[in-house]
């Protein structure tokens, strides 16, 4: 029993971390692009901004379970199977990337426009502003966003257990629902709660420690 939980916790963490990394690989550039091309952005481009915004909104409005089923073909094409943790990662990334993009957008929008203006006055180009002003100045907010995104992905990954995704979600489903093993189900829930707490606290602490505004 203990070994099973340990193993499935590992699977959940694998899905969460891998999906977070990939979701940021897509969501971070998209989020930055949303700010840069936005109304008061440094590279204002309304058609691109609208296209990105609509794309993000469409993906965000599809419930995760439906998205997972809809992406069956795509997942099979990409990883060769539609069950198991690696297959779940595909859907998790597609679901989380637009969420991450909005988180990143909100974090960067928070920066004082005057600082960006100052960088422009010094002759910084847009890439320099993104890499040397936007990301470093928004770092604390980005780290808080990272913790929130990771927790959301963890929750989605548990949901993926319903359709053979593996991990703690599958344990809760198989033992709790199919075998009426309430004890195992509650232990699984407890493990998930602890994981969420750890990620949240860690994220907040790191964000606080590295923020030089205080």
């Amino acid at each position: 029993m203990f070994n099973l939980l340990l193993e499935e916790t590992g699977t959940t963490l694998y899905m969460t971390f891998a999906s977070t990394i990939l979701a940021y690989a897509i969501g971070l550039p998209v989020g930055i692009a949303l700010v840069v091309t936005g109304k008061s952005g440094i590279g204002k481009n309304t058609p691109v901004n609208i296209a990105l915004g609509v794309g993000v909104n469409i993906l965000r409005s599809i419930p995760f379970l439906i998205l997972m089923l809809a992406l069956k073909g795509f997942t099979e094409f990409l990883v060769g199977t539609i069950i198991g943790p690696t297959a779940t990662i595909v859907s998790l990334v597609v679901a989380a990337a637009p969420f991450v993009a909005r988180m990143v957008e909100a974090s960067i929008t928070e920066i004082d426009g005057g600082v960006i203006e100052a960088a422009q006055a010094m002759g910084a180009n847009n890439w320099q502003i993104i890499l040397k002003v936007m990301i470093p100045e928004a770092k604390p907010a980005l780290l808080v966003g990272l913790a929130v995104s990771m927790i959301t992905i963890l929750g989605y990954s548990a949901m993926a257990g319903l359709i053979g995704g593996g991990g703690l979600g599958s344990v809760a489903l198989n033992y709790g629902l199919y075998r009426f093993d309430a004890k195992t189900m509650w232990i699984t829930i407890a493990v998930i709660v602890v994981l969420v707490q750890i990620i949240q606290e860690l994220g907040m602490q790191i964000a606080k420690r590295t923020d030089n505004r205080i």
Partner: protein
Amino acid sequence: MEIIKLERVGKVFETKGGKVHALKDINLSVKEGDIFGIIGLSGAGKSTLVRCINLLERPTTGKVIFKGKDLTQMREWELNRERRDISMIFQQFNLLMQRTALENICFPLEIAGVPKPKAVKRAKELLKVVDLEDRAMSYPSQLSGGQKQRVAIARALATNPKVLLCDEATSALDPKTTKAILQLLKDINEKFGITVIIITHEMNVIQQICHSVAIIDEGIIAEQGAVSEIFVSPKSEAAKRLVLPGGNRTEKFSGKRLIRIVFNGRSAYEPIIANMILACQAPVNIMYANTQSIEGESVGQMVLQLPLDDVEAGKLIGFLESKGVMFEEIEEVGADV
């Protein structure tokens, strides 16, 4: 000679409520090494004007000529290169909050591609210039307003600019700190020969350090010239409003004959009023007096009420004329403001 020249610069903002003409037809030339003030009340367009100089705002019409080249015709990368020669400091300092003072000063050098050890060396020199050597490792949140502006000034000097634009740089500071920052700007102008352009709504800022001044009102330059000239004889309505802040006090003056005497540097040190009274044996009534020091010269004005007797009044006026004192008769109450 001229480092910056604006030719027929106009700026129109498209807003929900229609077009707003922030700048209408600005012609301005700034001499190299000058401390040039641009003063106006809020909403006069001065912030837009200063942003048109380094093209943070693109003028809708007109030319911005820097060292003989029109900035508005440049490509992005050319403009970015020129911007290293036109630094800017701001009312809200605009320091990078996640960088130390030293790292903030290194920032424009990083952008310009200066290798790090060289940038750090230069930043340390500049911290010395602004008298903040001991705060190199402090973050902006740990510095006072005056210290933040000093860091911003050091940062602005990092790339050895030719021009320093100051957008209400002292408006967020208390009077004592304002004075110290203005003195620093003056020193920088003298030591490094950097042309300083100061945007402000405060006359005492202009008075304390500027050589030349332009008065902006409703998107046009109402008047420009040497600071001492405009203080002595403001011509435009906008200039009078700014130079004679106590102007509406004239409304309290009573009596028929009022004259406004203007002192230039020479006569301010002479007891001219006392001599006049002794010489003419006629009394005057001092209604309003205000003298101030501008660039080391005493400049001031005084409003006198003359006796009603035409002969006595004539004698007094004759005395002033003989001494070469500038004055004007104010026909009606409040006529000069």
